[in-house]
């Protein structure tokens, strides 16, 4: 088969693909930031040692981690309109879903990160009269974040890859943008191939970046 990209120009890209790229990026950034925030709360709950905090957080994280993301996307798309009593767009539903879903994964990373900080640091915080909150905020979390930054960023790359799954509810993301353009010009094979190259270029350069960062920020103890 002969590949024909002659139809492709800047206006095709900006009218079909750009909109999808913007949504995929927004979804990734919002879900990462909100997911890390919510994930940190979940991690602190699990490390608090109080059963009434540990149990719900552990149940939440384990449930989210044993269901395929596509099913979670479908669940939220079905449940949110039932709960709020009005329909919700696929895009907004996707943002909510990814935030809550990724929070479970981020919380596991945060938990490992917090546990990677030596216990003596916590004790030192208490010894100088800090409260639990102060010790966490001023001593443990800054170090934990630094230890975990490469893993957090790798998870963000995975999150970006996973945004393509909003296909299941028809949201307009990067993959959809290529698909619609391919259908319009009757060149689906060319567009899917281009989509693959674009996803690869983005994810590969980001993982290279993470690798360089990893070498740079390692704490030498």
């Amino acid at each position, binding site marked *: 088969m002969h590949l024909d990209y002659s139809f492709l120009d800047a206006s095709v890209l900006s009218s079909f693909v750009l909109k999808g790229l913007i949504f995929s990026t927004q979804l990734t950034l919002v879900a990462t930031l909100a997911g890390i925030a919510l994930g940190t709360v979940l991690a602190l709950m699990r490390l608090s040692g109080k059963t009434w905090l540990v149990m719900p957080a552990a149940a939440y994280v384990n449930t989210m981690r044993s269901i395929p993301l596509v*099913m979670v996307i*479908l669940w939220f798309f*079905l449940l949110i309109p039932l709960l709020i009593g009005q329909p919700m767009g696929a895009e907004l539903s996707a943002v909510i879903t990814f935030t809550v879903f990724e929070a479970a994964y981020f919380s596991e990373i945060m938990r490992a990160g917090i546990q990677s900080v030596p216990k003596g640091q916590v004790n030192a915080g208490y010894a100088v009269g800090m409260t639990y909150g102060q010790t966490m905020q001023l001593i443990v979390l800054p170090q934990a974040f630094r230890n975990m930054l490469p893993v957090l960023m790798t998870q963000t790359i995975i999150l970006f890859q996973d945004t393509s*799954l909003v296909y299941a509810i028809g949201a307009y993301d990067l993959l959809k943008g290529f698909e619609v353009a391919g259908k319009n010009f009757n060149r689906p*094979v060319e567009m899917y191939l281009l989509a*693959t190259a674009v*996803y690869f270029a983005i*994810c590969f350069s980001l993982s290279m970046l993470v690798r360089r960062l990893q070498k740079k920020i390692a704490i030498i103890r």
Partner: protein
Amino acid sequence: MSTWDWQVFCKDTIEGEIQPGCFGKGGDITYLDWLLSAWGWTLSVSLLALLLALVLGALIGIFRTTPSKTLVAIGNVWTELFRNIPLLVQVVLWYHVLPALIPPLKSLPSFVLVVFALGFFTSARIAEQVRAGIQSLPKGQRYAGLAMGLTLPQTYRYVLLPVAFRVVIPPLTSESMGIIKNSAVAFAVSVSELTMFAMQAQEETSRGIEVYLAVTALYFVSAIVVNRIAIFIEHKVQVPGMAGGH
């Protein structure tokens, strides 16, 4: 919210009438029949893909630890390629693009293409685990094997791999559980697995919550079963006193 209606699973998929005994008769199928067959598809796709991924992943992982620059390069390119393209895009690639470029693939059913997509995708992740497993062994083991006059393949076969494979079993357990979750992307190319069933049955019956709950429960059960099997295998192959042993 409306009340539960679990009888939806006893309904005929064509007329929508409730069948006594919940299973269809004489060629008709109920939603329960369909659900179980969808579970079968999910398990088949996952198991075949896992098999493919284990074989390819072990091979590529070994490549990346050999002294040969060519093999290392092949291994690295393979891993980066399949790790940095979203799984759904890879499925689309296998289904829409590759058959157009390589005509013989056209005769393959989408089930097989999904197994390839999922298997290749997971092989890159398994290769990474295998590589890490082999590199976690003390360098002296490799040198000792070579010093005794074993060839490189013999060193791998008799010295390195027996320990390395045992080291990688725990991470492989989570990969095997992941592959069942990842098989859900097969919905995109209309393989009649659990997620596809969930979407279609939800649309046809409007009993989304019951349908989704059943599907979610089956994903749970599958993950737990895989986990138990993996733990069983881990205990079976354990060498006391060695890595992974107690």
